[in-house]
């Protein structure tokens, strides 16, 4: 067979490529390329008309330079000239250049389309194919407009050459995928379907891709293809390995065509015609039988080709899900592959078995392989194979093997790859809940989960265990005991502290009889963890402490002591300070009755979908679907709670649905409780109104702050004496804020003094203030400028403290300056494709923050848009497929880094709820922006 010799073709090109390859450095290469570009430019511009060969050579060099990664901004016209050459080699280079360097210049497009049109009507099959390949490679809308009508004609014309038909079929497929509205099959449908009968296997191979795509979109119009596909398949499957000559690959007759036929059949339900169905079942049986025959070759190509067909046949069998016999045989075959020495086959068998596990006919058969799959989870070297094994274990899990599977998954978690841990944790949590027969096992499992992989246990998981413990009387004592024991470990995960704080706060009394876990021991144990925990956990612990005071009056003095200490009552965190102050007051003022009412045991949670399951469904994971199906059945016994609980429960759940933390983080539930029991509620208000002045004077005025998240100008503060207006502007990571202090009285303020302070030691904001005059005349306004530089992302805002004397009395006002991280947003416009791609790139769990919350204002579209724009991001139109949703993008500019941020807001007008999702490259940013924005609607 004559081969291509190296020197053949264009000598100048070969020399140029050698030169480039001989370049020792990147600089040398660039120099050589620039020299060549200058040369080509001068040749193209020169007076002398270039002959076809030279033009071809230079265009080809440009193409090579482009493929090396350099920009090419000329040569298009010369390439278009080559299209009208009569020489194949010149035409080919012209088409290649145009396909690779697609240009949107409309004049060029007109010329290109003209050339293509000429070649399509040339009746020269070689030229026709070149033109069709160009259309197929470019696939632009302009080309679809110009040729979508012509190509079907070429495809079905009797005198079209086979190779042209192949190209025409796939060319049409590309146009259909790109612009389905322009490709109208109508009258051609039946003739296209009949290409399945074509004598030339290559034509069938190409046409079937087109037919499969069209069938999946319009199954009814193409349904005649089923019987044709079955008979074609049957002929191939029953042929001997030599019958098909050219189309036999390593002794396997037409493997690719067989796969494509089986794939086409998966667009349809099982054939209704008995004869057709019988023939198809026969084919599938033959394929399964062949898998058992000794191989005709030891080459991997032979077994791969054979198994490609086998896996496709099994897909079809699973798709039909109606032939128990075939399903079980498929399962047995896959079972053999589970132990095959080829990693590819083990992987594919695990993957395929995962879908088999969800069929009622083969579920039991799949279960018999449990030991092998567990072994795979432990021993496979390729993480993707282990992932498939974990998926399969999840899919095959039922009541009979749940304990074994959950135990195996837990022990695997200890060494599992970081990339799959969170998903594994969710799966274990779901299985444990779903198949829990006794709930002590469930509690053990979840606590183990936190112990082993605490970092990967998302909020949903620990919320869920608490919901379930609260709803099941029989497990509460056990849960208290177990979590108490777990907390004894010298180092335990913060999530364990959260669960511990919550459960002991609610049910610590159930184990208080044992002197080893007496109230004080419990309290000391919890409090020993306090200092190691983050603010939200500390807040939760404070709530647990006030519950302790209610449960165990003997701890009151100790706990009050703790609450009274400076580190609590003067904590720099507003939330902690407020809780400490309020709880201290509550415990000292309220009578035991009030205390008992306020801190009554949490009412059972109403039934609702497991938030964990919802989370897993969002992730991929083939197993998720099967659980969803069975979920309804299992639910009833899962949470014995049912509907009991009455109004209080519903009130609590309303609070909990928008933000799961509300119902779990303690006294915040004062609001729903007050709704449920008005008498206690009003008492509560009294308590706080008495405690009010004392508490707030120490605190900081917060409400002005949140109003400025989405706007820059307005009135920040106002009382009878003073009004503070604000105007601010931000660019990049810099901001300037103008504060206007207006004296509303007719008397002057003396010793007027303002300070801006920033409590966190590490410098994250650079704030410079100019001092103001100490005298503010009655009715006058003074201005102050504050310059702000954002060094890195931050949460806490600077505090503005204003002191002055009015009529002799010292006035002291503290405000949070409305400097929030979003002020440093630069809007980023992007197209839908970019958005989704970036969205997917930010898929790590910590990069996402999400809140579901109830609308506190109207849901007017324009208002929403204005707020989102005010946030500082770009509001992207036509990105989210659901027009009700909003998506935004922006980059937060800090001195240290830039943080890209994507946002999606999904309003549900009916439920008056929102779901807000933030993704950014930095977890603290996602969380902070999400927190801020969630307060705005």
């Amino acid at each position: 067979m004559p081969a291509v010799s190296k020197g053949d073709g264009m000598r100048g090109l070969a020399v140029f490529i050698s030169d480039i390859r001989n370049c020792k450095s990147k600089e040398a290469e660039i120099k050589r390329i620039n020299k060549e570009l200058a040369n080509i430019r001068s040749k193209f511009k020169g007076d002398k008309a270039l002959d076809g060969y030279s033009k071809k050579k230079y265009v080809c060099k440009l193409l090579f330079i482009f493929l090396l990664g350099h920009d090419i901004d000329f040569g298009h016209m010369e390439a278009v000239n080559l299209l009208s050459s009569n020489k194949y080699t010149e035409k080919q280079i012209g088409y290649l250049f145009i396909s690779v360097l697609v240009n949107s210049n409309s004049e060029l497009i007109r010329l290109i389309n003209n050339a293509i049109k000429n070649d399509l009507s040339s009746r020269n099959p070689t030229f026709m194919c070149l033109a069709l390949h160009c259309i197929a490679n470019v696939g632009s809308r302009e080309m679809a407009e110009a040729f979508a009508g012509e190509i079907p004609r070429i495809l079905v014309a009797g005198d079209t050459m086979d190779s042209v038909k192949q190209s025409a079929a796939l060319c049409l497929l590309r146009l259909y995928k790109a612009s389905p509205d322009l490709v109208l099959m109508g009258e051609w449908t039946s003739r296209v379907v009949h290409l399945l009968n074509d004598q030339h296997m290559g034509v069938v191979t190409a046409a079937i891709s087109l037919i499969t795509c069209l069938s999946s979109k319009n199954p009814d119009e193409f349904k005649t293809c089923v019987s044709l596909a079955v008979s074609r398949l049957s002929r191939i499957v029953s042929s001997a390995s030599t019958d098909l000559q050219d189309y036999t690959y390593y002794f396997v007759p037409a493997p690719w065509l067989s796969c494509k036929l089986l794939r086409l059949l998966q667009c349809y339900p099982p054939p209704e015609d008995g004869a057709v169905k019988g023939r198809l079942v026969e084919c599938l049986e033959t394929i399964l039988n062949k898998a058992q025959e000794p191989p005709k070759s030891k080459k991997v190509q032979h077994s791969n080709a054979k198994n490609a067909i086998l896996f496709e046949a099994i897909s079809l069998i699973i798709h039909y899900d109606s032939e128990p016999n075939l399903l079980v045989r498929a399962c047995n075959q896959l079972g053999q592959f589970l132990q095959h020495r080829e990693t590819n086959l083990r992987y594919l068998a695990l993957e395929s078995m995962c879908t088999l596990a969800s069929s009622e006919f083969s579920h039991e058969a799949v279960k018999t392989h449990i030991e092998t799959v567990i072994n795979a989870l432990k021993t496979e070297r390729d993480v993707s194979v282990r992932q498939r094994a974990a998926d399969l274990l999840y899919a095959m899990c039922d009541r009979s093997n749940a304990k074994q599977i959950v135990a195996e998954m837990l022990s695997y978690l200890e060494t599992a790859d970081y990339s799959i841990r969170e998903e594994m944790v969710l799966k274990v949590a779901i299985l444990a809940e779903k198949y829990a027969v006794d709930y002590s096992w469930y509690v053990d499992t979840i606590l183990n989960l936190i112990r082993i992989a605490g970092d990967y246990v998302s909020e949903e998981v620990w919320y869920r265990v608490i919901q379930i413990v609260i709803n099941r009387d029989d497990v509460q004592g056990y849960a208290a005991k177990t979590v108490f024991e777990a907390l004894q470990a010298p180092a335990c995960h913060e999530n364990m502290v959260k669960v511990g704080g919550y459960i002991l706060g609610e049910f610590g009394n159930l184990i208080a009889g044992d002197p080893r876990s007496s109230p004080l021991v419990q309290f000391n144990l919890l409090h020993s963890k306090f200092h190691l925990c983050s603010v939200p956990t500390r807040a939760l612990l404070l709530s647990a402490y006030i519950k302790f005071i209610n449960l165990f009056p003997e701890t009151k003095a100790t706990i009050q002591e703790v609450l009274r200490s400076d580190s609590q009552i003067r904590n720099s965190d507003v939330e902690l300070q407020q809780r400490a102050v309020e709880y201290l007051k509550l415990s000292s003022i309220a009578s035991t009755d009030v205390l008992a009412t306020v801190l009554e045991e949490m009412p059972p949670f109403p039934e609702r979908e497991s938030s964990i399951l919802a989370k897993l469904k969002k992730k991929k994971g083939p197993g998720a679907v099967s659980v969803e199906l069975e979920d309804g059945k299992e639910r009833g016994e899962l949470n014995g709670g049912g509907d009991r609980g009455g109004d209080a429960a519903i009130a609590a759940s309303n609070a909990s649905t928008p933000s799961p933390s509300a119902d779990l983080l303690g006294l915040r539930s004062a609001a729903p409780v007050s709704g449920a029991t008005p008498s206690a509620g009003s008492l509560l208000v009294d308590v706080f109104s008495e405690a009010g002045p004392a508490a707030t004077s120490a605190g900081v005025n917060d409400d002005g702050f949140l109003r400025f998240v989405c706007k820059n100008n307005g009135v920040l503060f106002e009382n009878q004496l003073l009004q503070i207006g604000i105007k601010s502007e931000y660019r990049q990571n810099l901001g300037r804020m103008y504060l206007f202090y207006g004296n509303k009285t007719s008397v002057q303020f003396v010793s007027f003094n303002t300070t801006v302070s920033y409590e966190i030691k590490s410098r994250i904001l650079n704030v410079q203030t100019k001092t103001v005059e100490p005298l503010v005349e009655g009715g006058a306004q003074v201005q102050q400028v504050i310059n702000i530089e954002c060094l890195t992302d931050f949460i806490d805002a600077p505090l503005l403290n204003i002191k002055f004397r009015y009529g002799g009395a010292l006035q002291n006002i503290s405000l949070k300056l409305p400097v929030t991280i979003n002020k440093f947003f630069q809007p980023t416009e992007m197209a839908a494709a970019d958005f989704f791609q970036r969205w997917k790139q930010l898929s790590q769990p910590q990069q996402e923050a999400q809140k579901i919350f109830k609308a506190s204002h109207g849901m007017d579209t324009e208002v929403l848009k204005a707020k989102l724009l005010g946030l500082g991001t770009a509001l992207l139109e036509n990105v989210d497929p659901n027009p009700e949703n909003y998506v935004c993008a922006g980059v937060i500019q800090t001195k240290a880094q830039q943080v890209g941020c994507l946002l999606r807001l999904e309003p549900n007008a009916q439920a008056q709820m929102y779901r807000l999702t933030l993704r950014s490259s930095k977890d603290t940013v996602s969380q902070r922006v999400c927190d801020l924005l969630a307060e705005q609607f």
Partner: protein
Amino acid sequence: KWYMQFDDDEKQKLIEEVHAVVTVRDAKHTNFVEFRNFKIIYRRYAGLYFCICVDVTDNNLAYLEGIHNFVEVLNEYFHNVCELDLVFNFYKVYTVVDEMFLAGEIRETSQTKVLKQLLMLQSLE
């Protein structure tokens, strides 16, 4: 070769990402890697990797052998193909690809037919 629309920067990034995920895998690993919302089927020949990115539901083994079929054609066409042949004749490689894969689908699988066509084109001027 691209069968979907991307801009040039995007293409470069994809190439780098694919390179990063594929070249770190060892011979005992599968020939399949999940990649964004797709999967990559790849096969290594000496220092050269041939990669195809397909839908997750596509048939892994069929594409794996599709690569081998393609390489066998190259080998025959260039007579014991080596990397240099592919570099110096890059514009011919495009022709071979278009004969066997078009619009992201398998166009022709018969090596005899492909080679016959290629030799016919070779003889044209």
